[in-house]
């Protein structure tokens, strides 16, 4: 194979992305690489459908009772799109139980039983409904959170590959500045002992002292793409050091680099 070791390492990340096992911390790195390298994109497009087809290995016969039940649910829900699974199931089950009780008769004793069981049933239905509402709220929150993360990722990738981005080389990577955003893209960072993290530092324009910025831990492979929270237009210098977990107010070790943004 003619690929260099670095290229091989990147293509292995591309394969991991195709299979869907890439950690979020390496997403921006691989996405930017795919956008910039046609050969990597071709590799991704060759492996992605193969990875998707792995799912076919899970296709199994489903017993006829389950098939019929699931089909009834899907088709019923498709006919009434506003009704979703959990509450739909609860309503249907309730209707079946109610009809059973209607047929039970009008005797007083039966009425007492009816009232008693109905109370339990209503409690059960309310509990089902509460669970369904809670689950729906949780899923909505999860979807909103995922959407925020996707938006941030998209914005970051756009900044990282922009031709008008300013790039400042540092050992093992670059500081990238675009508009008000500033990023560290680093690779092959040495693993840190337990209880230690990398911490970014900044010096504001006209300032003289390092101010603490974000702390981060690179991926196991030593990669990190980090967005600093500061306004890039107000910064004169970005630096990096190794600090105790949780970060420090002032550097406690020698900086790995101090990079003026000029």
């Amino acid at each position: 194979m003619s690929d260099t070791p670095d290229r091989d390492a990147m293509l292995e990340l591309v394969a991991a992305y195709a299979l869907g096992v890439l950690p979020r911390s390496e997403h921006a790195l691989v996405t930017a690489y795919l956008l910039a390298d046609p050969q990597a994109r071709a590799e991704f497009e060759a492996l992605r459908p193969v990875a998707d087809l792995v799912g076919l290995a899970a296709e199994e016969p489903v017993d006829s009772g389950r098939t019929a039940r699931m089909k009834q649910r899907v088709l019923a829900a498709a006919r009434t799109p506003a009704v979703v699974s959990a509450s739909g199931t609860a309503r249907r089950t309730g209707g079946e139980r109610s009809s059973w009780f209607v047929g039970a008769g009008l005797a007083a004793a039966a009425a007492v039983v009816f009232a008693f069981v109905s109370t339990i049933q209503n409690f059960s239905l309310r509990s089902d409904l509460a669970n369904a509402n809670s689950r729906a709220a949780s899923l909505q929150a999860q979807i909103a959170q995922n959407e925020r993360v996707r938006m941030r990722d998209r914005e970051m990738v756009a900044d990282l590959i922009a031709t008008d981005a300013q790039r400042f080389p540092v050992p093992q990577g670059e500081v990238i500045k675009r508009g008000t955003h500033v990023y560290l893209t680093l690779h092959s960072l040495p693993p840190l002992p337990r209880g230690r993290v990398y911490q970014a530092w900044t010096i504001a324009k006209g300032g003289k002292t390092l101010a603490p910025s974000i702390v981060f831990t690179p991926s196991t492979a030593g990669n990190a793409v980090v967005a600093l929270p500061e306004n890039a237009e107000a910064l004169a210098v970005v630096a990096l050091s190794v600090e105790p977990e949780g970060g420090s107010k002032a550097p406690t070790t020698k900086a790995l680099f101090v990079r003026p943004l000029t």
Partner: protein
Amino acid sequence: MERVRARDPVAFEHMYDAYHRLVFGIALRMLTDTTTAEDLTQSVFLKIWTSPDSFRDGNFNAWLSRVTRNRALDVLRSRAAHMPVEIPADIPTEGNLDDIVFAKIDSQCVRAALAALPGEQRALIEMGFFGGVTHEEIARRTGVPLGTVKTRIRSGLRRLRADLQSAVSR
């Protein structure tokens, strides 16, 4: 799919009959819980019914597999910390030659191709797809060095592709 796009309920029912085993199978393998797998199956088919245009063209089997996996990852995401990023179901591709070739692939063919892989490659690929974990987590769980995990996944996918291509051409 064209008839489903045209809101034909009979076509939708036929689609359900043809593909529910795949969707339920992936969901059950990933979630290991029949009730949640049933819910997820319903959710995937309702997504197809309400947003049929989310499938543009290409290999429907592969697209459906990815959509189901992404939905199952959403469920798993609420249970675990080490989650991979999902690949968008509508990510654009430049050609559809593979889609045409691989459209002939069925589950038996995929199982045979997976079985032909060296065991150490097959295990990592299956754990990655169905386990919904990152390659780092795979390395941690199996005790295999991360670099080896990455190499085996890439080699395994490349070999799987070659085997599926040769199976189609036979």
